[in-house]
């Protein structure tokens, strides 16, 4: 053991300290810890692009309350430990006034204590219901909960008089969380789950699981909670095995890419999704129509990619925050939090948001539309009698 080695260690750690020195300015700092790379990049990448895009637009129009916004984005790679470190960095080092981020439920839950301790409003982009139940003073969220997705799917099943289903879900957080919610909601809505299977998010063939489902007697429909490439492969395999009963996907597939990847197999598949996926098919009197048409056009124009509802959630989070800032006439964190909680009648890409002290999400079941894929495109399913 030598002094030389100590010098090496000290200098390496010393270099780390040189990471300090963020120049302070009169800008309002907003933080975003997103999973831009890693297993959740399908969600995190559109979120990042959306936030950057719209912060630029807002600044071009003069900012909020006359002050420009500074967006600080960190990529946690889908890892909860990294997310927490970046959250600490945002709070202690960058000194943000609010945060819009937390792509997944896991990263969100890891970061919540940091923002609660620092008393900074945190608008999460994670799907899990445990983010807002129990209600936490400083934590809000914009995406629909997976519980709502289950309720929407089950309502449609009842309308079609289908009551016995099978579920095949991804073992990643999104799939598991929604599967748990569906299992909890099913008995209350009169749906019986006759059989369950799972698959890994990166698996390439689900025919064994689907064969077991096909062989189970009495199954009238199949529900697939999951996101990313898994549902596309499940849908293809479903077609390959010529399974006759209807297939329901989740809001996790909500992007045109799913239809491209699943191909012909996607025809007849139904799923709950935000109005953002069907901007042109909305009724002109629909309050969401101008918002979603505008967002999807802008996003497609600036990034060249098809719109994704996950990017939409980030848009909603940013808009709720900036509108709360305008109402609070400043960036005082406590006032900001109060104004966010008072959000009423906000028309976003996900639906119409009405928050309250007991509801930090503000969406109800009407925010979800039931869609069916026909001829390679989304169509709205009429919800008569619902």
């Amino acid at each position, binding site marked *: 053991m030598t002094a030389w080695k100590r010098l090496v260690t000290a200098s390496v750690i010393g270099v780390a300290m040189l990471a300090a020195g963020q120049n302070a300015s009169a800008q309002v700092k907003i933080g975003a810890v997103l999973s831009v790379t890693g297993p959740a990049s399908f969600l995190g*990448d559109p979120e990042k692009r959306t936030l950057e895009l719209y912060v630029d637009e807002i600044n071009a129009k003069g900012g909020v309350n006359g002050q420009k916004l500074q967006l600080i984005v960190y990529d946690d790679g889908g890892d909860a430990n990294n997310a927490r470190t970046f959250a600490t960095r945002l709070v202690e080092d960058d000194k943000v006034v609010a945060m819009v981020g937390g792509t997944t439920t896991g990263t969100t839950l890891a970061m919540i204590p940091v923002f609660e301790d620092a008393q900074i409003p945190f608008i999460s982009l994670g799907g899990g219901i445990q983010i807002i139940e129990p209600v936490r003073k400083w934590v809000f969220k914009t995406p629909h909960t997976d519980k709502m997705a289950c309720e929407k799917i089950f309502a449609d099943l009842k309308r079609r008089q289908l009551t016995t289903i099978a579920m095949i879900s991804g073992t990643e957080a999104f799939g598991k969380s929604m599967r748990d919610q569906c299992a909890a909601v099913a008995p209350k809505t009169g749906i019986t789950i006759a059989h369950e299977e799972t698959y890994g998010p990166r698996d390439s*063939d689900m*025919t*064994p699981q689907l064969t077991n489902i096909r062989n189970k007697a009495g199954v009238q429909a199949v529900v697939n909670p999951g996101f990313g*490439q898994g549902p596309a492969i499940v849908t293809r395999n479903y077609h*390959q095995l010529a399974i006759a009963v209807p297939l329901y996907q989740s809001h996790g597939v909500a992007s045109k890419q799913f239809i491209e990847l699943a191909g012909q197999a996607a025809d007849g598949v139904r799923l709950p999704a935000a109005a953002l996926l069907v901007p042109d098919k909305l009724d002109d009197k629909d309050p969401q129509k101008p918002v979603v048409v505008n967002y999807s056009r802008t996003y497609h124009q600036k990034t060249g990619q098809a719109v994704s509802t996950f990017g939409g959630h980030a848009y909603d989070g940013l808009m709720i925050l900036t509108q709360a800032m305008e109402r609070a006439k400043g960036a005082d964190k406590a006032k900001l939090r109060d104004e966010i909680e008072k959000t009423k009648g906000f028309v976003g890409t996900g639906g119409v948001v009405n928050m309250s002290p007991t509801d930090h999400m503000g969406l109800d079941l009407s925010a979800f539309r039931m869609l069916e894929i026909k001829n390679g495109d989304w169509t709205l399913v009429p919800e008569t009698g619902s």
Partner: protein
Amino acid sequence: MAEFLQFFFSGLTVGAVYALVALGFTLIYNASDIINFAQGEFVMLGGMTTVFLAATGMPVPLAALVAVIATIAVGLALHRFAIEPARGASAVALIMITIGASIFLRGAAQVVFDKRFHSLPPLLGAEPIRVAGAAILPQSLVVLAGAAVIVVLLWWLLDRTLLGKAVIATSANRLAARLVGINTRSIVGFSFAVSAAIGAVAGILVTPITLTSYDVGTLLALKGFAAAMLGGIGSAVGAVAGGLILGMLEAFSAGYVSSKYKDAVAFLVILAVLFAMPNGLFGRGHIERV
């Protein structure tokens, strides 16, 4: 019976994918005892490059050819700039270099391409072939055929050509090989180029089944590596056998045991096999010189 057949077809499909990836590890290992963890990235590059080139309007077969050539170039660059300069480093250092290379290539892919999923049109159409109540995609058979062709080509290369003999000589004893006039540096570079080509071809053939994205390499490399070890590293036949067995284990565990634990069952079996046969199924015994 129909379900058994369906599980078998599933195992064949997934197994063929693993077999192709596992084959990529074989040649580099044979030439230099290096396990190239960037092999998964070669597979990814083959698929993604083809997808992006085809999206610009290039016909798919041409895009595939260009993709293979590009991947070979990456493989040669990897050897020339990362492996060659570290000549003489310990095995662990070399593994670390290939891991660093795989991180680098993944990072580059996310910048050059994008972070979404993509597919390629299957070679023989998308209509499944129905046999006795079970269905298999024609592409699975294409992947299997590809693996078989590569095994035959590798055998021919290593067994029947002087170049192949030079490869084996290089791995047996590098100094002795150089003493008899073999340019060991070129041989190792050659093995990287061929492995890159195998990886790229694998990527192009399996993408219609597995889909591709910038980080598809990690899990494929992991399973391909496990399959190669199961079959006995260094043996091309072993790589294919290992891949197929791994695929079958996953499919049958998913079908008969529990879909949650199918990967666990597969790995338990691999561990059990390795305990019983410490050199894998077809691996050569390791003779340690004292």
